[in-house]
């Protein structure tokens, strides 16, 4: 199909990447500035999160966790993007984004409580700057936009980041949020973890756009695509976007190409819509393997390190699930009292039916 001379022109985008699959630095110019200790910390968090995910799946099977959305495969995009933030930057997550909240400061036992359907899971500590996971796909995109508007009005050098998936990029709220951010030049990062599937619906059926990153063009904000299995590329992209936000240069849409190794949720069967070949192909891009190879070559990481972190993660998960299970059960009276700042008379009367 030939293009008309007066038609809007778009070109395909090349994803930002730093490491090859063998862990070789292929784009040294794009290497984020990290110390050896920081590089090890990133690996620590990814291995920890993978182990936590494995344990959470088992805890779910045992009935000790409720709704749980597995994260294995997406560690680079999750851990890398959070690591690139400052502690006072604000995260508005989607439903799968618990790792970012925990690494931003939410105690792990509260993450477990959230999954178990306990209100205390959402009682974010005062010094932790996150919202609870959002269930309505895309709603959090507007909250991040509002948080960024608040930062801008208060002249605070902070950014808001929000996460959604390839499915979420089809929501109206996605476009509305980016459009507002463009108009008001807000310090916000729209991170889309494109893992290829919205539950079962493949990316090809989600959009006819050249990429999700291209959608930034319509909103007049910057759009970039990142290899979301390459943690250094993710850190680079988010660091740069956050810096731009802090400097008053506006919002960035970052599409991170990634893959979830497990099903959508514990109730999903991925074999019904994904092929073994495809899964094997993505397994070769495993962000832990790839980054691990890079660190091993630098002499910063060994298999013993991985095993040590795994054991540590298992112990931590055990400790926190026990702590979560020991928290007193919610009551209907407590629910009623948490609806409003002051419980109105009609709700006081309804409370009496439950005491």
């Amino acid at each position: 199909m030939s293009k008309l001379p007066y038609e809007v022109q778009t070109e395909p985008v090349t994803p930002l990447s730093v490491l090859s699959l063998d862990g070789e630095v292929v784009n040294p110019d794009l290497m984020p500035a990290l110390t050896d200790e920081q590089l090890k910390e990133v690996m620590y968090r990814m291995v920890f999160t993978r182990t936590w995910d494995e344990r959470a799946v088992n805890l779910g099977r045992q009935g000790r966790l409720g709704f749980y959305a597995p994260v294995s495969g997406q560690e680079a995009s999750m851990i890398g993007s959070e690591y690139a933030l400052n502690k006072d930057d604000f995260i508005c997550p989607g439903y799968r984004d618990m790792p970012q909240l925990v690494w931003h400061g939410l105690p792990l036992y509260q993450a477990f409580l959230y999954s178990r359907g306990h209100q205390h899971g959402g009682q974010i500590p005062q010094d932790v700057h996150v919202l609870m996971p959002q269930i309505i796909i895309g709603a959090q995109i507007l909250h991040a936009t509002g948080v960024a508007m608040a930062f801008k009005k208060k002249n605070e050098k902070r950014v808001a980041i929000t996460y959604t998936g390839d499915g979420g990029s089809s929501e109206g709220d996605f476009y509305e949020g980016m459009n507002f951010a463009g108009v008001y030049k807000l310090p916000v990062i729209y991170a889309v973890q494109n893992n290829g599937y919205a539950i079962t619906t493949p990316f090809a059926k989600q959009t006819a756009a050249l990429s999700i990153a291209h959608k930034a063009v319509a909103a007049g904000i910057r759009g970039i695509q990142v290899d979301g299995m390459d943690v250094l590329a993710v850190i680079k992209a988010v660091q740069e976007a956050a810096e731009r936000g802090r400097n008053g240069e506006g919002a960035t849409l970052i599409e991170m190409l990634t893959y979830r190794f497990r099903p959508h949720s514990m109730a999903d069967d991925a074999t019904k819509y994904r092929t073994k070949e495809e899964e094997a192909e993505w397994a070769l891009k495993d962000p832990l393997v790839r980054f691990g190879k890079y660190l091993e070559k630098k002499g910063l990481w060994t298999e013993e390190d991985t095993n040590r972190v795994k054991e540590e993660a298992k112990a931590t998960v055990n400790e926190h699930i026990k702590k979560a299970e020991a928290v007193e059960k919610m009551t209907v009276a407590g629910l009623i009292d948490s609806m409003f700042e002051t419980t109105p008379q009609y709700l006081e009367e309804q409370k009496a039916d439950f005491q």
Partner: protein
Amino acid sequence: MAQMNMLEAIRDAMRIELKRDSNVLIFGEDAGKVGGVFRVTEGLQEEFGEDRVFDTPLAESAIAGMAVGMGIQGFRPIAEIQFVGFIFEALDQMFIQAARMRYRSGGRYNSPIVFRTPFGGGVKAAELHTDSLEGLAIQTPGIKVIIPSNPYDAKGLMISAIRDNDPVFFMEHLNLYRAFKADVPEGEYTVEIGKANVVREGSDVTIIAYGLMVHTAVKAAEELEKTGVKAEVIDLRTLLPLDIDTIVASIQKTNRAIVVQEAQKTSGVAAEVIAQINEKAILHLEAPVLRVAGPDTVYPFAQIEDAWLPSVARISAAVQKVLNF
């Protein structure tokens, strides 16, 4: 005392709060420079600057959702939804995200937001500008719903709404914006959310209404008085929480009641009022409580809206029915 119509009274409330609290902000479609399509916020951008009072792109979900995000960062947004029918675009953000914020976060976050919208029939407006959607709102846990009927209440309730730390849905009847002027105190005062008002005393029957229908009910009461019937008229003012105590006190005196609403008949405010009367005052009743409401159709095009809306005649007929039961 100043003489103000309801629109001016609402503006005065917002001006007072913008001045008092730098966290109060106003935004919405056309709400900034010109002060909204009805000029309710006229002059406020000029007085307080574009940083505090501003126009937004045309997207209701984002207007409401941005308010939620700003609300958890300490601002107290007054978000205007230009016409009532447009709230459907914003319902998730208004009725889910804002309304559940306190509960979902166990009190860590809240939504100190006023969602303002004009509504109400009888002005020959375009489709979906005039619907009475308060029935949807009162089924929403976590929000408060206000419909004022006069300038004094509108100002006092708006100040209360802005100061409230939970989300308030503030519905402003189009037909009352410029209908009449009344005495409104200068400076700040509040009307308590959740308190009804007996606007006309009587001993034979209670007519419960809100918004424009308060005025139609008062007219009906005046007509009825000519036939010797003394009707008491209650203005609900707040629909959630509902002031059932004032209603019950009136029924203990009159033993008969009807409820008037512009909204469609089924499952709305009137139905809820009657359910609560049933729970709290059934032994005081001499007759069933009747509803005078729009029929269960879509709100009609302008040609027949006057016939569709509750009238003095329909209210009087319902009163006669409960008196003659």
